């Protein structure tokens, strides 16, 4: 879907109005997942495996059921069976069947009249385990002799002879690799590693489920995608999808981790068994042990470069473990690895590996931060070796419109060069550095997504507008969608209200994922507004007794247009809507599609750090994000997305990691030990919004939510290398690791 006549002149877009959810959030009125309440509701608690890998021999719930206040216990036998593929994976992850596959895996659940009773009762559920050998590290998991997580899990892509824990194999590329490396003056190859990190959303998973004896159910839940929750829950319960109605709450962060189910089918199963509503709220420990972090990665990268910085060949071999199920994001990691570069000879190889860890979930540009860490670190190493400017080298090799991308297809209009030029011109790039300080630069990419989308736009009697969308607002999409509706309708932002509605109110909507909400729901809103405008023009034409084709819509008014239209005073949207009940009935617009014109977004980051040579502690002194937004609808929200991505990337680079003991159990299950960056760890993150319009959106919008987390990992590693002279190729760059690297 290309838009030849892309709108350029905006009245509402580019302004910074108040956010519609701001007052509720700062006054505590916003209702999150744990705020749901129904009289008579029970509280559910999950019994979790203390073993990384164990056969479930027997579950005895008799003591728990004998406790006063306990109303139900469920195990896997209380769910449907017969699922296949990813449906089976989701079911197995929500409630273990024959084996517990990781520390924290759910094996049973209890519902009781209070959360305290449910917690006590959960301790009385007796589970007999046969402990099995485990493996949690990706390279170990694919080595001969490693414990097999599950036989027969590999798909069509895995060639014969690989370990059963390798479940997908990916290979793609183009050109002649050997010839490319021969043409280089310098060829370097290094191995990089990143640990699994968690999305770290502040709000733990929470839901309230109610299943009636008629087989119909309802759920209130914090989620990025309530249609996904509905379908996955229905599959686990063995009921028709339409039997469930799911309403999303306000959401306290998701970053991809709330696009799937964990407790939701369990709450429904407990409710079905107890015939009472059941509320479940995860603890932070449960969130870290049993929801989806991202994958850990082991990556080999080889690059050939001429002395003046031209890249002649690139090769990436990535191994990722995504827990005890398939779908570590190794495919997207590889697709992003060399995406910033125009390289004639490039080759990618990837291994998706299972281990005894929780099932990985999406995390902001899944796979791309790891890929950027490996490739952008090696590019920096070679720039330093050849005494070349890292931005000049990236400009020399930059992908642009017409470049054959590293994954094959030719790029449409993209904005990488513009971000590099803006970074080069920024005063940050030439600012002086002090002792023990270093500067790092890196670029990154995310391809974005469209997805199934359905939107309705309804006009009120006074001409104000209500937009119903199905994409939960995790980053300001209600504001951006209201602004696009106001722009299209020619009315004020304050005259538009956007509601995120439940599953019964619209057709299927994919979650807010893939940086798609502002792009896809925004596009659908503009189309729905145009449909409503057509109806408004028809009403005016009827009133004037002329053809609708002779009416134009400008600034919220219908106006006669053309030589034969006649002379009539403009009719405002309010005037038309005040009469709509007697001129044909309600006026609304609707649009549904799976828009495919999502445009990828590139970014370039600059960071200055200072490393304490005695403690190894890294202080981030200055940080600048430059990223292509296509068109920034609400610039403050775009800046917020840039800053949020950088903050999460800084945490990933410096401190965050999943630490497993020799027993295969997660060692750091609270925020005291799993250290996300807090405000005092971060400088004010500067932002530069580059606008290279996306040809696939009527206003030029590109998704901006994910790209910002990709460059920080290598940018900080590159800065630490300059500050210390030590190159760290394994994350996180915690103080002990930096000290060790500095000592050689």
């Amino acid at each position, binding site marked *: 879907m290309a838009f030849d006549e892309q709108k350029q002149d905006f009245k509402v877009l580019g302004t910074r109005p108040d956010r519609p959810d701001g007052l509720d959030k700062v006054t505590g009125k916003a209702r999150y997942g744990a705020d749901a309440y129904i009289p008579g509701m029970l509280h559910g608690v999950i019994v979790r495996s203390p073993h990384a890998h164990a056969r479930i021999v027997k579950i005895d719930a008799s003591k728990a059921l004998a406790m006063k206040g306990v109303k139900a216990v469920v195990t896997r036998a209380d769910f449907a069976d017969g699922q296949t593929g990813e449906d089976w994976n989701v079911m197995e992850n929500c409630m273990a069947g024959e084996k517990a596959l990781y520390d924290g895996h759910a094996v049973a659940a209890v519902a009781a009249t209070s959360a305290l009773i449910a917690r006590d009762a959960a301790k009385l559920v007796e589970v007999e385990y046969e402990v099995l050998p485990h493996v949690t590290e990706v390279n170990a998991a694919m080595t001969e002799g490693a414990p097999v997580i599950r036989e027969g899990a590999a*798909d*069509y*892509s895995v060639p014969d002879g690989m370990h059963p824990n390798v479940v997908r*194999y*990916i*290979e*793609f*590329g183009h050109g002649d690799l050997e010839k490319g490396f021969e043409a280089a003056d310098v060829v370097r190859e290094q191995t990089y590693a990143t640990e699994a990190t968690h*999305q770290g959303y502040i709000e733990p998973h929470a839901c309230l489920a109610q299943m009636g004896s008629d087989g119909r159910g309802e759920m209130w839940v914090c989620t990025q995608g309530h249609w996904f929750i509905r379908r996955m829950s229905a599959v686990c319960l063995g009921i028709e999808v339409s039997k469930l109605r799911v309403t999303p709450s306000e959401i306290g962060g998701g*970053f*991809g*981790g709330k*696009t799937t189910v964990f407790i939701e089918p369990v709450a429904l199963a407990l409710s079905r068994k107890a015939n009472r509503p059941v509320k479940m709220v995860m603890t932070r420990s449960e969130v870290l042990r049993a929801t989806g972090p991202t994958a850990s990665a082991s990556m080999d990268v080889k690059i050939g470069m001429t002395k003046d910085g031209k890249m002649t060949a690139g090769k990436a071999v990535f191994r990722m473990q995504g827990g005890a199920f398939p779908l570590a994001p190794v*495919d*997207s990691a590889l*697709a992003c690895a060399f995406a910033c570069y125009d390289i004639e000879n490039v080759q990618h190889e990837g291994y998706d590996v299972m281990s005894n860890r929780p099932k990985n*979930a*999406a*995390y*902001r*540009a*899944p796979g791309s931060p790891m890929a950027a860490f490996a490739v952008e670190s090696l590019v920096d190493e070679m720039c330093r070796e050849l005494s070349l400017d890292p931005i000049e080298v990236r400009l020399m090799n930059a992908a642009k419109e017409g470049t054959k*991308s590293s*994954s*094959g*297809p*030719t*790029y*449409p209009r993209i904005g990488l060069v513009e971000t590099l030029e803006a970074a080069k011109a920024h005063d940050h790039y030439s600012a002086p550095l002090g002792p023990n300080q270093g500067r790092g630069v890196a670029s990154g990419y*995310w*391809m*974005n*997504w*469209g*997805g*199934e989308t359905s939107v309705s736009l309804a006009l009120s009697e006074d001409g104000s507008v209500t937009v119903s969308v199905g994409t939960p607002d995790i980053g300001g999409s209600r504001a951006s969608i209201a602004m696009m509706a106001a722009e299209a309708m020619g009315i004020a932002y304050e005259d538009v209200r956007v509601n995120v509605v439940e599953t019964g109110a619209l057709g299927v909507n994919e979650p807010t*994922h*893939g*940086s798609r909400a502002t792009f896809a729901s925004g596009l659908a809103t503009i189309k729905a507004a145009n449909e409503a405008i057509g109806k408004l023009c028809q009403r005016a034409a009827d009133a004037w007794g002329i053809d609708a084709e002779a009416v134009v819509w400008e600034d919220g008014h219908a106006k006669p247009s053309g030589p034969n239209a006649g002379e009539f005073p403009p009719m405002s949207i309010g005037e038309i809507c005040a009469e709509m009940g007697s001129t044909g009935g309600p006026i609304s617009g609707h649009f549904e599609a*799976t828009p*495919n*014109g*999502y445009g990828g977004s590139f970014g370039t980051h600059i960071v200055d750090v200072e490393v304490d040579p005695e403690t190894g502690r890294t202080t981030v002194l200055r940080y600048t994000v430059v990223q292509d937004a296509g068109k920034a609808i609400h610039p403050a929200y775009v800046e917020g997305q840039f800053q949020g991505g950088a903050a999460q990337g800084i945490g990933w680079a410096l401190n965050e990691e999943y630490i497993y003991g020799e027993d295969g159990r997660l060692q750091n299950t609270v925020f005291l030990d799993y250290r996300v960056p807090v405000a005092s760890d971060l400088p004010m993150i500067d932002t530069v919004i580059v606008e290279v319009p996306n040809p*696939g959106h009527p206003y030029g919008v590109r998704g901006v939510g*994910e790209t910002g987390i990709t460059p920080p990992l290598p940018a900080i590693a590159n800065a630490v290398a300059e500050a210390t002279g030590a190159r760290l190729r394994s994350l996180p760059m915690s103080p002990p690791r930096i000290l060790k690297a500095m000592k050689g």
Partner: protein
Amino acid sequence: MVEVHLWSSLRRFADGQESVEIEGKTVGEVLKNLAAAHPGLAPAIEAGAGLTVDGTFLGSGRNHVLDPEAEVFLMMRIKGG
């Protein structure tokens, strides 16, 4: 006829060819005919592999009418968080 370029890990299911000529006016027809002509590709298509047309992945655009001159790749579906 549409020329469909194959990701290299998929080429072994099409006799090692870098690209194949397939009949079909729409994305859906081409995918169906691809699976029929090269049955080894069927599991990949069932698992979500789809066509990227002129730089845009059309995994959910089976009714999209293809321009015979379009650049077409069979790729895996990739999405984010």
